[in-house]
């Protein structure tokens, strides 16, 4: 991490330079250049879009491409050889699987936290007050069982002693798709990330789950072993963990690791 730290310092210094100060000259002097592909969990979409924008502002010769899907889907992509430089997942278990197949450059680091919330139709017509009330809901949207948000939702339901019959559960392909089932579709309730519930605005009503019955979702980030842009990838990871990245994540409701 020492190298990443140094690069992060350099990055911060460049970012702190006055905005109009000879951008061309700054770009020419900036050792960071090229195109970086970042595979990120769907729930990180908004936050990482902002982080990518800020990163590019600090390093004009860099272009960041975001690839958003479920963490499980992204793991499968990397394992089948997708040209990805940085991977950010909604859990740490995804990295265990990547490490087992030899696709990780080094130990990943935790960089953000999330928690779960229940979203229902605006105005909460079915009067859902907590996970226990989901037993009386006709259609509940949950993430797929192999996707992190599905595992977190299962843990929340298990804590509340709730067993939902599979015949009333529609499985979203990722966290955002699960939210969409309520926000744009006919599902009555969903267990989603608190950050996604917040991003949905008035399309849904959010029912908070108290910490005692909730889980802590720890997000991890790491560099993919086969990346030909190791320095750039390390710099991006350091940026995400640095003050700018933390600010962007906090602005979208993520907690500190």
């Amino acid at each position, binding site marked *: 991490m020492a190298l990443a730290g140094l690069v992060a310092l350099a990055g911060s210094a460049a970012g702190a330079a006055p905005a109009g100060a000879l951008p061309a000259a700054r770009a020419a002097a900036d050792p960071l250049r090229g195109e970086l592909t970042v595979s990120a969990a769907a729930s990180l979409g908004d936050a990482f879009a902002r982080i990518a924008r800020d990163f590019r502002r600090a390093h004009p010769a860099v272009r960041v491409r975001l690839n958003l899907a479920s963490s499980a889907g992204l793991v499968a992509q990397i394992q089948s050889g997708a040209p990805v430089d940085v991977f950010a997942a909604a859990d740490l278990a995804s990295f265990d699987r990547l490490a087992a197949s030899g696709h990780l450059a080094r130990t990943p680091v935790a960089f953000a936290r999330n928690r779960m919330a229940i979203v229902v139709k605006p105005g909460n017509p079915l009067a859902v007050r907590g996970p226990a009330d989901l037993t009386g809901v006709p259609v509940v*949207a949950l993430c797929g069982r192999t996707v992190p948000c599905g595992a977190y939702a299962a843990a929340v339901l298990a804590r509340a002693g709730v067993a939902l019959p599979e015949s009333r559960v529609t*499985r979203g392909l990722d966290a955002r798709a699960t939210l969409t089932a309520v926000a744009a579709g006919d599902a009555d309730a969903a267990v989603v990330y608190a950050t996604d519930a917040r991003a949905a605005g008035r399309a849904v009503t959010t029912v908070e789950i108290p910490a005692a019955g909730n889980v802590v979702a720890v997000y991890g980030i790491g560099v993919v072993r086969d990346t030909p842009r190791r320095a750039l990838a390390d710099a991006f990871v350091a940026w995400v963990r640095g003050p700018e990245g933390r600010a962007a994540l906090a602005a979208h409701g993520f907690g500190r690791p």
Partner: protein
Amino acid sequence: MVIAAALGAAFILLPFVGLLRRVRWASLPGDLGAGPARTALLLSLGSSLAATALALVLGAPLAWVLARMDFRGRGVLRALVTLPMVLPPVVGGAALLAAWGRSYGLLGAWLHDAAGVQLTFSWWGVVVAEAFVAMPFLVLALEGGIASVDRRYEQAAATLGAAPMARLALVTGRLLLPSLAAGLALAWARALGEFGATITFAGNIEGRTQTAPLAVYLLLESDPEAAYALSVALVAVCVAVLAALRGRWWGVRR
């Protein structure tokens, strides 16, 4: 030119070769015969057959009108009803939600309040989504068949005293059988493969709306062997459809 053609054929065939190599043949019956793969396969068979029947009921009169009646805007109507063929399926699903969704649908809200019927997240929702994308295939095939029927046969039957319904069943119907079969087979294959409109409109409920293509997508992450087994089963069905058609595309060549 031959080399270029071989490249073209290889481009289409290589993925299937890959699929056949990737599938674990020894465990194929086990992978297909148990768990979500089996449930999804059975559900897909049932819903796609129901969707084909729905497409026939709604599509046959439409094909007749398009083929036999001359009216202003016929070309526009034909183009519009074949729109689902070229539309991204997920857009079709969004459109179905906008029409039949309980919460925000044009007719769906009324249908739910008045009749207590909700199509979204239901087996019938799967059937509607599949029929929506499959019906144009049936309409086009059948319309082509109807247009190419020599009407002198019908006139001859009429002069021999056959009533209109008898003429339709015994003369025109007979001549239409090949194009009808082609239309049904194409519509059925399309319904069987539907993904985007289904997951958008009917969701992904195991045993109720999780069709085989949805299961393939999900299983690729958790149980790739079962996903490949299910893929091979779907390919086999489609090959069988093509074999049954034997080049009788659109029913124009007889």
